[in-house]
């Protein structure tokens, strides 16, 4: 079995596993490492330089660059004869009604990022095998980091790659899928966001993919890890997270923080404050990061200002919808030792409230 998908939990050193794989394979193998975010590309490049700098056939590329360089640019004429891709338009969107080439390229001939997956996928079939054959001759292995970030047509492309002679290794944490390459696409909703777990299990059942579940986090304290598991409906069948974090401090675990204690909590523990987006957490004047931005980061302590659904989940145990659950999971799993959640009405929650008096007495 040449295709692997590692479903890992937050803090299980996914990116490092890719770097180590590159360092371990034969120096003759031509390896392509793909990832979605620019920050992760830089991270991969710098780590590869350190650990696999003697491997000259490892190439790191963004997902869009991959689609442009190996799909759209070489094979566009199969869909639009005589046309060329002259650039890339990341932010732009085609007009809703646009058809033909206008759906995929703007007036300057630049490919729309949000439609690139669809275009690329169509070109696979239209090239009558030339596209895939080309890829197979250029690369022996394609590694994809943060695979949960891909969506819609991207998954169909992966589906094609799974049947190619190129070995595909994907690493991702489906619980973290808070980005999508085409937010507007309704097609393939079943594969996007947390739905991708179902996709992978279907392929495993057909023997096209081997799923390895990596459940050990080196980052999150056991209590934090256990809480992060509880965010998801058990029907998703995520395996339980194991923690290797044995560090003990005077404040470990998940705590509720009353509004009136927020200032004191921040002063005392200096946690990284996290909010869903610029529109949330306005009640407090804190140095926030948005959930999305915090992806890939590690902090000793975090303080989360919950959204209404998150507050409701904690107070009543009503499960979040997939998307919200993912973003909350990202926020919680940033922490090594402690997670604070700003909440006044605890409801049926069993989480303890932080008590400033007790803390003072300890000191």
């Amino acid at each position, binding site marked *: 079995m040449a295709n692997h998908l590692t479903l890992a939990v937050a803090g299980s050193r996914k990116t490092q596993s890719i770097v180590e794989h590159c360092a371990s394979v034969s120096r003759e193998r031509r390896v392509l490492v793909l990832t979605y975010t620019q920050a992760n590309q830089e991270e991969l490049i710098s780590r590869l330089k350190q650990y696999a700098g003697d491997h000259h056939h490892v190439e790191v590329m963004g997902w869009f660059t991959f689609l442009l*360089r*190996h799909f759209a*640019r*070489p*094979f*566009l*004429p*199969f869909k639009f*004869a005589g046309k*060329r*891709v002259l650039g890339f338009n990341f932010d732009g969107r085609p007009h809703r009604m646009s058809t033909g080439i206008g759906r995929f390229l703007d007036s300057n001939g630049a490919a729309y990022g949000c439609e690139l997956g669809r275009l690329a996928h169509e070109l696979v079939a239209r*090239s*009558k095998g*030339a*596209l895939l*054959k*080309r*890829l*197979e*001759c*250029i690369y022996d292995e394609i590694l994809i980091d943060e695979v949960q970030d891909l969506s819609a047509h991207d998954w169909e492309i992966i589906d094609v790659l799974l049947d190619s002679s190129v070995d595909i290794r994907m690493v991702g944490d489906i619980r973290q899928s808070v980005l999508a390459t085409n937010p507007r696409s309704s097609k393939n909703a079943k594969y996007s966001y947390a739905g991708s777990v179902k996709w992978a299990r279907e392929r495993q059942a057909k023997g096209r993919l081997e799923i390895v579940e990596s459940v050990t986090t080196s980052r999150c304290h056991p209590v934090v890890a256990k809480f992060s598991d509880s965010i998801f409906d058990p029907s998703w069948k995520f395996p339980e997270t194991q923690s290797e974090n044995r560090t003990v401090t005077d404040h470990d675990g998940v705590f509720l923080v009353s509004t009136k204690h927020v200032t004191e909590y921040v002063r005392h523990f200096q946690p990284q404050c996290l909010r869903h987006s610029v529109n949330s957490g306005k009640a407090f004047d804190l140095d926030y990061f948005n959930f999305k931005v915090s992806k890939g980061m590690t902090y000793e302590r975090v303080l989360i200002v919950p959204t209404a659904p998150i507050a409701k989940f904690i107070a009543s145990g009503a499960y979040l919808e997939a998307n919200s659950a993912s973003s909350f999971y990202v926020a919680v799993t940033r922490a090594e030792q402690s997670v604070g959640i700003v909440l006044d009405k605890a409801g049926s929650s069993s989480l303890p409230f932080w008590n400033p008096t007790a803390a003072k007495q300890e000191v």
Partner: protein
Amino acid sequence: MIRKIKVQGYRIHKNLSVEPNRKFNLIVGANESGKSTLMEAVALALTGRINGRSVSEELNPHWFNTAVVEEFIKKRVSGVPVSFPEILIELYFEDVPELQILCGAVNTHVPTTACPGVSMRISANPDYAAELEEWAKAPTSLLPVEYYRCEWRSFADKELTTRPKVLATAVINSHTVRTSSGIDYHMRQILGDQLEPAERAQISLEYRRVKASLSNTALNAVNTRMSSVHATLHNRPIALAMDQSARTSWEGVVTPHVDDVPFSMSGQGQQSAIKISLAMNRHAGRAKFVMVEEPENHLTHTSLVTLLSRIESLAGEQQQLFITTHSSFVLNRLGLDALLLMGHDVTAKLSTLDPETVNYFKKLPGYDTLRIVLANKIVLVEGPSDEIVFERIFHDRYGKRPMACGIDVLSMRGLSLARGLELCAALGKPITALRDNDGIDPDELRGPVDKWLKKGVRELFIGEVTHGETLEPQLIHHTGEVLLRDILGIADHADLLKWMTREKTEAALRISASEKKIVPPACMLEAVKFAHG
């Protein structure tokens, strides 16, 4: 391997499409037919350079096809806003795994096809739209190339900056460019491809060490003395050291030597022989494409024989050769089936030739095959006497020599008529063939070669058996003994037929020089009329 070459608007080639042979390509053609231009175009698209310099540096208005430019100017002057002339060179490669990085559908093939390939496009740069249009108000035949851009791309639509390693190319031409280091760009390229990475690293390392050691020995004493000279701005000591920058790398000073004579000092023939051997030698980095211009230049016959057999034995399956030549010897020796005949916007190939015939010509390398190949109309006769008599009869009838009408009269000199006819048929060339009947019924003789004959294009003329077996009795039969004795100046007591048969050429020359006309044999007269058309 190049499967197809497309050249549009480049020099003499307005729109040329060539499908070269897998291994050998012998490009022949009349002068000014664009042989060298084709080679240049291929090298241009393969290497992105021309004579070692970048295309944009070398670009000049004379690269553009004059007919295309004239058409453009005519249209613009008459107010039709046609676009500026362009040059496009496309090379379509074989669809093999190692070339897949160059694979894509960004080419001009219709219908859309994906295959590995490269293109060189020289077109008006839209950044200079205003300047271009200003120029077009009063256009001249010299295009404003300073407003043009050169794009070298793979069919995957990726801009190429340096020659992809898989396209190792060796260019061997006779105009040796002598650079300061004595080796031209092409030679340096060939040498560079020759060395394995480890060898290259070793040489580089040693060369640095040698340079460094000079700094520590001979230069040391000088530096000690100079350290007391305070010439710099901040009174820092000056020291002499060997330049270790890339500009002075070993490549600039290491040159091949032949018998201890530097390469650049050896003869031109020797130089091209060395280049060819190096480029074709079996090693990892050897050239996939070898282009040789007129290997017969600067070589004696013996050296040419040696060189050609070396080319033949070195040529591998994975190597494609392009050779231009004016030499029938080169053509016959390397195989007529490799021929690419340059015509106006077309090339003819000889892939239909029987391998037996190819071998036949290889064994007859001295035969002037190129004359057959290059002639517009050919008359094939048996021997020199037939040739001379034919010319005279032609002149008597039309008042011009055959050559003046574009007709080349060629004597077979032992060449089998069938082979000659097959070659002409393969080339689609008109031919007038004449042969003796040697006492055999003409229809019987025509039988075996009939497949290469075509009414009105390729016809065979044979005299009646009753009129004599060869030219001489035929001449006696038609002209009559009396007149012929007079023309030849033969005494009555001599046997006319015996004398003519013994002195074939002399007889023909006397007929040719005579003021009196002979009565031509019927078949020869027919042949003359047919050849004239």
